[in-house]
């Protein structure tokens, strides 16, 4: 057992004091509960133990899930961690989504694959602290020492007498006890719940169509609002005529809204501050009226084209001097002495997030307060912006987080929440703002467009002696300073170039990695081929170097864990076995503190390459919810294959050329492969899982496609972009 100082106590352990009373009566648990055993009676009273836990008189336990749920399944996995330390039967657990409350909770964010990583310690302590207080309360009642009270799935056991009490029997007494200075956390080997497969707590509601999402939210008297934004990036509103729209049935108002901010924070990315708002009674009425508004827009900054973007990226990589991110040895000198030099360039287009639930938010703003409800990955940031714009204090702005129909980074940027608040303020009524698919796709915070040029040098024994990477992005370089292959080669040069744009961009699932991993891993494959080595073994050779004699002392990754996932996938996929008719590609990547290696199997059907199977090895430390974890990994793989193969957002005169799914291709059921996932078993505290399986699959796919077709795939999306094979230099 490990003794652990309770940290961040202010944030979650003293909620009883913060909320004034420990006793909550008359809570309507049926409205917010997850399925529980049918034989459980309805509780008469609930007691708050801390910010995460309340216990009912009959032993039911409510666990609050602090972070927003975007489909990464934290609403199940975070409460599992609390329940593990609390030692309660999961069947008696009701999970509720917590509202935004920065006094009670830390980091209520869905982003960076960090919920479990950052929450792990605090969630365990919340459970352990509550258990300790329940044990103390039982000890007081039995007049024994606390060490004589053990727990057993929601029961307190007197080891002297064998007497038992339920958690509900002592909850009120426990809540009034002082918070212990130290709590015992379980030994990892004693985990009963963590590492098992627990079903999604919202599963039954999802399959029966219960209202869970922001777009489903409804309040008596609410109006529906929609927006018209400029048709192109770089344009401003000149004039508009809304007379016809205003005369349409159900339409209450059409007006102009300015959402520009004096001091925007990072989450306020938004290219369109000049908006026309249509407010009416029903969605269809507003949708129709939106089409009846005549607006004239004028360019006030350049209207960009995809051709210009391409040229700017070429210029950035080929002619501009970028920022040097890492320099080991002298890569240019080593390249001059190399026996073989390989140089290749990779590109990828802008991408939209395309969450299935379009952007939306509910707001009811009165002079006294602002109530916001909806899907947001960064509720605290949204609150900050709303407070500033409305001139309100923190306690005047509430944000209720709904389940999100996808995020992928789009809902880190809460412009739609601010828009809803400003519209509600303007009309003085509760309003639900809804984007159409076209609004959503053409008003994005897109994944930037990228280009990277790699140069590698091999000596006469086919050892890697030099590696250069120069990468440009519109905007922002996709290159990480201290990642593979840095650390495995004596002479390394990494350089990043930023190309400016007026198109709004932002984080998109596994930012930067979602391009650079695929490019890097496809290039490594070509280097291995030039060296005449098996691509998987070539990678292992590089990691051996980094394990035994790493170059530099600030490499991000642990080379042994990197090699570990490669070895695991090698074994599981039977890499060394020749499989007739199957072309295989491999890739490995590290991001969000986790390691992933994949083998992609491609077969030819009717002269077309088909992705048949993906084998995936993951080292993300302790796996909290096995089946949920596999689901995340599968999703990342399908997402990665889909975007590498089919998806792109292109621009013509500042206007996105894809506005809906008839123009923007997303991967479909028929194109999804079989997937098998293997986890490295270890005792390392959990690391990220929502993102890490996406980036490498783009590389493993390109490598398998090469084996199947003889064509190297340099430019995404592979099915649409021209693939000009480049010449081996030297």
């Amino acid at each position: 057992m490990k003794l652990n100082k309770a940290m961040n106590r202010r944030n979650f352990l003293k909620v009883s004091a913060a909320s004034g009373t420990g006793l909550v009566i008359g809570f309507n648990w049926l409205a917010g509960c997850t399925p529980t055993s049918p034989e459980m009676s309805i509780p008469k009273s609930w007691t708050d133990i801390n910010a995460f836990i309340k216990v009912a008189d009959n032993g039911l336990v409510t666990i609050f899930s602090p972070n927003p749920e975007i489909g990464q399944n934290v609403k199940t996995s975070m409460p599992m961690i609390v329940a593990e330390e609390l030692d309660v039967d999961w069947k008696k657990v009701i999970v509720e989504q917590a509202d935004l409350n920065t006094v009670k909770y830390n980091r209520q964010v869905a982003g960076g694959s960090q919920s479990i990583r950052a929450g792990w310690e605090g969630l365990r302590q919340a459970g352990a602290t509550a258990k300790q207080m329940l044990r103390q309360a039982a000890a007081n009642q039995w007049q024994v020492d606390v060490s004589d009270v053990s727990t057993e799935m929601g029961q307190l056991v007197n080891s002297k007498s064998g007497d038992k009490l339920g958690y509900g029997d002592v909850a009120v007494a426990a809540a009034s006890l002082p918070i212990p200075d130290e709590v015992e956390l379980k030994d990892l080997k004693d985990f009963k719940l963590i590492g098992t497969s627990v079903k999604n707590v919202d599963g039954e509601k999802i399959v029966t169509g219960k209202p869970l999402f922001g777009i489903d939210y409804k309040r008596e008297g609410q109006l529906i609002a929609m927006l018209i934004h400029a048709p192109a990036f770089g344009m401003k509103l000149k004039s508009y005529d809304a007379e016809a729209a205003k005369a349409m049935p159900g339409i209450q108002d059409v007006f102009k809204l300015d959402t520009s901010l004096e001091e925007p924070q990072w989450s306020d990315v938004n290219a369109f501050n000049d908006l026309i708002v249509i407010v009416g009674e029903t969605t269809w009425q507003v949708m129709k009226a939106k089409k009846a508004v005549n607006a004239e827009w004028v360019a006030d900054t350049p209207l960009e084209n995809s051709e210009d973007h391409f040229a700017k990226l070429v210029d950035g990589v080929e002619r501009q001097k970028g920022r040097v991110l890492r320099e080991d040895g002298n890569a240019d000198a080593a390249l001059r002495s190399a026996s073989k030099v390989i140089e290749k360039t990779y590109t990828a287009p802008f991408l939209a997030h395309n969450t299935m639930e379009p952007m939306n938010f509910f707001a009811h703003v009165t002079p006294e307060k602002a109530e916001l409800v909806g899907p947001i990955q960064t509720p605290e940031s949204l609150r900050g912006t709303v407070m500033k714009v409305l001139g309100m204090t923190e306690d005047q702005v509430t944000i209720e987080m709904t389940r999100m129909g996808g995020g992928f980074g789009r809902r880190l940027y809460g412009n739609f929440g601010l828009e809803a608040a400003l519209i509600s303020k303007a009309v003085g009524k509760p309003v639900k703002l809804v984007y159409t698919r076209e609004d959503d796709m053409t008003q994005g915070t897109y994944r930037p467009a990228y280009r990277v040029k790699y140069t590698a040098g091999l000596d006469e024994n086919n050892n890697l002696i030099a590696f250069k990477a120069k990468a440009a992005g519109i905007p922002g370089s996709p290159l990480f300073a201290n990642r593979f292959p840095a650390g495995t080669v004596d002479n390394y040069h990494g350089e990043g170039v930023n190309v400016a744009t007026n198109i709004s961009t932002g984080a998109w699932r596994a930012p930067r990695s979602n391009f650079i991993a695929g490019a890097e891993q496809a290039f490594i494959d070509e280097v291995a081929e030039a060296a005449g080595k098996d691509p998987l073994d070539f990678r292992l050779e590089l990691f051996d170097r980094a394990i035994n004699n790493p170059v530099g002392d600030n490499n991000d990754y642990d080379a042994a864990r990197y090699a570990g996932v490669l070895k695991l996938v090698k074994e599981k996929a039977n890499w060394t076995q020749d499989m007739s008719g199957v072309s295989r590609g491999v890739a490995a990547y590290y991001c969000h503190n986790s390691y992933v290696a994949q083998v992609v199997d491609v077969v030819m059907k009717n002269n077309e390459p088909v992705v048949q199977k993906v084998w995936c090895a993951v080292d993300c430390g302790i796996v909290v919810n096995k089946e949920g974890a596999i689901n995340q990994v599968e999703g990342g793989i399908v997402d990665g294959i889909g975007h590498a193969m089919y998806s792109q957002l292109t621009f013509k005169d500042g206007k996105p050329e894809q506005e809906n799914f008839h123009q923007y291709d997303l991967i479909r059921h028929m194109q999804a492969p079989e997937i098998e996932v293997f986890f490295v078993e270890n005792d390392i505290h959990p690391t990220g899982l929502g993102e890490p399986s996406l980036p490498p699959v783009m590389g493993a796919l390109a490598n398998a496609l090469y084996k199947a077709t003889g064509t190297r795939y340099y430019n995404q999306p592979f099915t649409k972009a021209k693939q000009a094979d480049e010449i081996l230099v030297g």
Partner: protein
Amino acid sequence: MIQGHFDEKKGLNSTRLKLTTMAIFNIKVNGKTREVDVEPDTPVLWVLRDHLDLPGTKFGCGIAQCGACTVHADGNAIRSCSTPISAVGDMEITSIEGLSENGDHPVQQAWIEHDVPQCGYCQAGQIMNAAAFLDKNPNPSKEEIASAMSGNICRCGTYTRINAAIQTAAKKS
């Protein structure tokens, strides 16, 4: 019919006559006849969501490209976002809320068994499409499932689970 709409802001005296063609429709939804007073071009999707308080059917694209809005019309899977209420007539509409009384349709059960959803937004449409498909093809191959389900986008990429769940449901039903 033609009717005037009261304009709250301008008040009674300045009420403009808004020319519209609102009409009463009696449609059969989830086994009940429901009366709605809407414009005839109103998609079934918005009738369900805005007028009948049945928000389980989801808005994804509005142009029948993603399948999130799939419901049944006389047992056939249709895209409710692109089906105007005027086209419904006597057809029986079933939404996800009416697929089963207790959420225990074999497809719903299989979805739980395979823990299919991630974000969950597309899943009502996937389930409705799968249920209608299994009615016509009760013993489909993996490939037939993939083909039949390819009109429904899952942005989270749960396709492999959807496929497995449909195979399971086929065995059960």
